[in-house]
């Protein structure tokens, strides 16, 4: 449409195309910056290039919450790094510190007593449920489903309360330490946990009615952001995102740590690889985690919660306190743990996927190097591969379904 007269009329579409940055060849790509101020799940930026309504490319621009965690870890004693790494994934504190503690235990040549391993597994599964509910809520609000957001965050409170009863802190548990755990199971914990499980099972049915089977959500999620098994393997995706693409891989099975070899559970896998499959895998994982918690409460063996080597160092008065209250006292030698020179690697399945630790010890009281590869960092590449060719409307749906947690990715 050309106009008559000297100047182009403002209403012409060409005017708008020029505003959108159309280049000389007539190819119009509109660059849109989303973020970096907390677009939905934390500080990050997505640079989206749009051709009309179709995403040509979406580039995740990360690093806004980088805290040099690996470098900070080199300047602290081994035990002091536990509260530090906790802050990478505050919503999944038990799992992210467990990986670190497992690597340190290998360096020290320690093994936690069976009861401690069960308690670790218990808190890890409580954290997994809380982490999935967090992601679920964020995914809900990204589709403007504020009810799902409120419900998931409200129900997460039940699991946070359980974790608080066990550890004394809502999120920053610092519960798993080299050689064991810091508190024994409270007496009324079993009853509380079973009530929480029965409540959650009922709520999951409500979630299904209001969110999962809601035709609006089906329209937004089914066949959106599809990734197939080959591609997911090639990109090195981990966690529920990988399992939703049809790859049966879980560090809990692969690594056989904690009490997992003695417990029965399934690894939910789906073939579809779309946003809906990722959501369904997470919901099924919540169910499996609840079944694991039930089994732990039935099977948990009696015995010490802390390694004999360090427990022995406590004076009788402190031992008495530990026995009567179930709250551990640490020996003074624990401040300066001194492993032999060497290297250790450990991996643990978090709510978001597999976390990997590589610790190099030079025989001093501080680690020489700690390398952390978090699941969010490995999943961030999905932004680019899932969004290509999708409509712009699908970006929040894909964003929510990946369950990306920026502080964890940036460390």
């Amino acid at each position, binding site marked *: 449409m050309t106009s008559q007269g000297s100047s182009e009329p403002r209403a012409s579409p060409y005017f708008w195309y020029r505003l959108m940055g159309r280049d000389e060849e007539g190819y119009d790509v509109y660059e849109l910056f989303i973020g970096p101020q907390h677009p939905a799940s934390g500080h990050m930026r997505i640079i989206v290039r749009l051709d009309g309504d179709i995403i040509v490319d979406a580039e995740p621009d990360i690093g806004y919450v980088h805290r040099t965690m690996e470098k900070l870890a080199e300047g602290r004693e081994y035990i002091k790094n536990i509260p530090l790494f906790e802050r990478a994934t505050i919503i999944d504190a038990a799992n992210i510190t467990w990986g670190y503690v497992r690597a340190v235990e290998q360096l020290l040549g320690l093994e936690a007593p069976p009861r401690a391993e069960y308690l670790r597994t218990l808190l890890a599964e409580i954290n997994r449920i809380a982490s999935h509910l967090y992601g679920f809520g964020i995914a809900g609000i990204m589709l403007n489903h504020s009810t799902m957001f409120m419900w998931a965050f409200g129900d997460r*409170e039940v699991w946070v309360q359980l974790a608080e009863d066990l550890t004394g802190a809502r999120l920053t548990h610092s519960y798993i330490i080299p050689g064991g755990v810091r508190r024994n199971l409270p007496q009324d914990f079993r009853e509380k946990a079973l009530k929480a499980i029965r409540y959650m099972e009922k709520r999951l049915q409500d979630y299904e009615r*209001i969110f999962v*089977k809601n035709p609006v959500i089906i329209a937004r999620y089914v066949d959106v952001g599809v990734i197939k098994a080959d591609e997911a393997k090639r990109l090195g995706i981990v966690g529920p995102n990988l399992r939703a693409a049809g790859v049966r891989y879980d560090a809990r099975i692969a690594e056989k740590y904690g009490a997992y070899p003695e417990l029965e559970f399934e690894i939910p896998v789906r073939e*579809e690889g779309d946003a809906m499959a990722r959501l369904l895998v997470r919901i099924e994982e919540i169910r499996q985690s609840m079944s694991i918690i039930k089994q732990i409460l039935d099977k948990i063996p009696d015995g010490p919660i802390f390694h004999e080597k360090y427990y022995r160092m406590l004076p009788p008065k402190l031992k008495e306190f530990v026995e009567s209250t179930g709250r551990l006292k640490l020996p003074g030698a624990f401040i300066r743990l001194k492993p032999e020179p060497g290297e250790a690697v450990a991996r643990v399945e978090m709510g978001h996927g597999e976390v990997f630790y590589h610790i190099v010890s030079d025989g001093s009281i501080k680690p020489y190097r700690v390398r952390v590869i978090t699941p969010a960092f490995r999943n961030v590449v999905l932004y680019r591969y899932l969004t290509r060719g999708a409509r712009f409307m699908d970006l929040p749906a894909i964003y929510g379904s990946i369950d990306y947690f920026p502080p964890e990715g940036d460390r």
Partner: protein
Amino acid sequence: MAEDVYKPGNLLTSLKRHAAAIATGLRYLLSTKRMTVRYPEFLIDLGEGYRGMIRWRRERCISCGLCAQICPAAAMKMYKLPGEKKMFPGINYQRCIFCGFCVDVCPAFALEHTPVHDLSYEELDEMIYIPERFDTEWVSPALKEGARPVKVVFDEEVGLRHEPK
């Protein structure tokens, strides 16, 4: 579980699902059960195990300094008091992360957690507790203003219930 989300639905199934979603929402809208605690009229009583503000008892302290050594945030420090040979711990609540390592490592039970957690300060300097101020009884400001303590009860219907204590 929700296998049928992948099956192509028709108008009727779609209508049914819309109705189910709205009915579920309405059921909760009209329900009187709430999980919310109306702080500061009500205050959750967190019980003994909670890792809140740390209480130090001077008469028990043996000045070993382990608490200052283990503190991951360098919040706990040893101070020299005038006229005293020994050093005593003081805490900086600008830095404290409430990990409780100091409490766990204290061999003399001089440090312990209290359930108090809802304090606020007007000045940053007030958050530094030198030993003279550290040996205090913590009181929740909400309780001081007459908040009613409630305890958390797990419930199959509501998730968490808060009962007056």
